[in-house]
């Protein structure tokens, strides 16, 4: 009876089975019906109808010009910018066609750019492989060791007949990936230690951790990068220089670790006291307790804020533009220095944004998958 009432009020849900069959003990199958859905969600009242029509009108205004600009009138391929400068031409994707190698790989020697390409594919393969729980064993560590060595050999060269390429010439996607992945991976253990240290009973350790976290969190990333890139060399004796890329990675790592530490501390605090007491009663020492009982639970809770911070770090690497490193966004901007093509800045930035989006979207979806998987049984 109740189902029938709901059907009357809500035409979106209808039976597909014989209508005269009694419904008792037989739940109605819900199927989606366009007309019903539309009536319920879009035209249920007069204000809703007006809003729907207004939105449709705005979409009608916005979408056709965008589609026309980006697809229909776009210039897809051309050796010179003249084809894009004619009246009525849309997006100049020919710009991306001409400059994509610079945008993707920056100043890496042109003839050798297959090397960063292979390295990036390998690197992404490693990351994607590590995301698959079936591979979570000791073999994965070995795969990373081998994979990173191969990537290093490809990027630097100097052996096996590959010419040596200084890391000051790296740029584009490889640089963005190195800055963010190394930054995040190196920051994680540091962040765990900082979070544990902040909750430590030892005053010295606690003070150091609190000071570090508050100091780093109190300043913007851009000033950390400035310190690493500009102030640091001034304090060094003349002639002693530390690699620019290393300084940037160190800055990003320190910055990220402070934020991750606070997220992890949240996880630690949310564990019931009983977990700590239970671990103690088993006779586990501090590190056993932390490693086996506390951290696995705490880290699982904080997956969303951790991934949030990962995505944020990934995008923040674009700030290295102010210290003259050619990350993905800088190469997209530098490609515009060519006077012939420089009016097509929208295309350049859209291309870079699309690449950033792919990576960030992957991270976001993966974290949702991971949450579902790890939360089996404790879902609330």
């Amino acid at each position, binding site marked *: 009876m109740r189902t029938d009432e709901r059907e009357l009020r809500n035409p979106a849900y209808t039976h597909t089975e014989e209508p005269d069959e009694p419904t008792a003990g037989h739940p109605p199958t819900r199927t989606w019906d366009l007309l019903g859905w539309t009536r319920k969600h879009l035209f249920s009242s007069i204000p809703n109808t007006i809003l729907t029509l207004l939105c449709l009108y705005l979409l009608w205004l916005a979408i056709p010009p965008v589609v026309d600009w980006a697809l229909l009138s776009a210039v897809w391929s051309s050796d010179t910018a003249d084809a894009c*400068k004619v009246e009525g031409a849309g997006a100049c994707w020919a710009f991306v066609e*001409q*400059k994509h*190698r*610079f945008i993707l790989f*920056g*100043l*890496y*020697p*042109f003839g050798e750019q297959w090397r960063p390409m292979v390295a990036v594919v390998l690197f992404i393969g490693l990351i994607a492989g590590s995301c698959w729980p079936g591979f979570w064993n000791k073999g994965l560590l070995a795969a990373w060791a081998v994979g990173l060595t191969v990537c290093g050999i490809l990027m630097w060269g100097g052996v096996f007949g590959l010419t040596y390429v*200084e890391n*000051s*010439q790296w740029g584009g996607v490889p640089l963005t990936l190195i800055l963010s992945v190394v930054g995040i991976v190196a920051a994680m253990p540091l962040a765990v230690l900082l979070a544990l240290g902040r909750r430590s009973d030892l005053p010295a350790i606690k003070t150091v951790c609190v000071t570090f976290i508050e100091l780093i969190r109190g300043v913007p990333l851009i000033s950390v990068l*400035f310190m690493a*890139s*500009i*102030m640091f*060399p*001034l304090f*060094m*004796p*003349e*002639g002693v*220089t530390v690699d*620019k890329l290393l300084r940037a990675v160190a800055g990003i790592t320190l910055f990220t670790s402070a934020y991750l530490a606070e997220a992890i501390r949240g996880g630690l605090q949310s564990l019931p006291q009983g977990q700590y007491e239970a671990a103690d009663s088993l006779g586990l020492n501090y590190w056993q307790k932390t490693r086996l009982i506390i951290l696995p639970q705490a880290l699982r809770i904080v997956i969303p804020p951790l991934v949030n911070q990962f995505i944020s770090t990934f995008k923040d690497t674009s700030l290295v*533009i*102010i*210290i*003259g490193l*050619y990350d993905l966004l*800088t190469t997209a*901007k*530098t*490609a*515009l*220095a*060519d*006077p*012939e093509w*420089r*009016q097509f*800045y929208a295309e350049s930035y859209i291309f870079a944004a699309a690449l950033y989006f792919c990576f960030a979207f992957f991270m976001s979806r993966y974290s949702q998958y991971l949450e579902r998987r790890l939360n089996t049984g404790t879902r609330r």
Partner: protein
Amino acid sequence: MKNLFTAAAMAALAVGATAGSAQAGTTFDAVKQRGEVVCGVHTGLAGFGAPDAQGNWSGLDIDVCRAVAAAVFGDAKKVKYVPLSAQQRLAALQAGEVDILSRNTTWTLTRDTSNGLNFTAVNYYDGQGFMVPKSLGVNSAKELDGATVCVQTGTTTELNMADYFRANNMKLNPLTIEAFEEVNAAYASGRCDAITSDASQLAAIRANDLPNPDDHVILPELISKEPLTPAVRHGDDQWFDVVKWSIYAMIDAEEQGITSANVDEKKGSDNPNTKRLLGVTPGMGAALGLPEEWAYNIVKQVGNYGESFERNVGKDSPLKLERGLNALWTDGGLMYAPPAR
């Protein structure tokens, strides 16, 4: 015990001091030992210093780096380019990360003194100007009273313009926009009557970003002085001389009519100035601590100043800049090299 400490401290100080004095004044030695010149350049400014789609650097500032490499090593390719942002450029030179800063940098008093830099020789005289559509019928910046002017925010350009309008008792309607590209787009679409920027940039905008370049005119008044000059750090006068004279050699070569095409022929010239410059009459190279072929190598591999100008920013380039102030002094410009003798 105390004596031991004192002795140790003295020894440490002495070592530190020797290390210090060995370092000071040895940029030139460090460059020679390294086998390449480390040159701080712009991350991407058309005509002055920018990598192309293949990552090869070119530009007026780049040619200074190449000239110095040609003078020191006889090979213009022995340069390592370090792209620097505007914020880090001075510190990078001070900290010794680069040997030369050739990055579109204006020579000012404070930079020359308290920033610890030595500016070598001006390689481009720039200045802030105005561009208007010809249809506006304006012939002088003084007639811009009440005009809407497009300008990029947060730059000295904006301040210079405000000063100029105030000094001339004119009413100003600035249309300030953050991104350089959008400033150009705003002007192109007619949102403002005039646009202000460095004259070199205005010329580049006219040549590249406006549908009909001939419909626009750059007004004759320059309201600021921007002598763009490569710099080295304090402490090595010999290196300072090498960089300075590498630039002068290019200017001098143009004045004497020596080009990359005819430099071999000019070696046989009877002109004593040409013979001295090209090392046929020895002495100049030895005075600089360079091979006698130094200027010959510069002209042969990089070209004289005029060639470099036309190739990068002049009529052979997309920027299509006029020589203007950057013509030789004999042609009414400011480019003047002291005699090489």
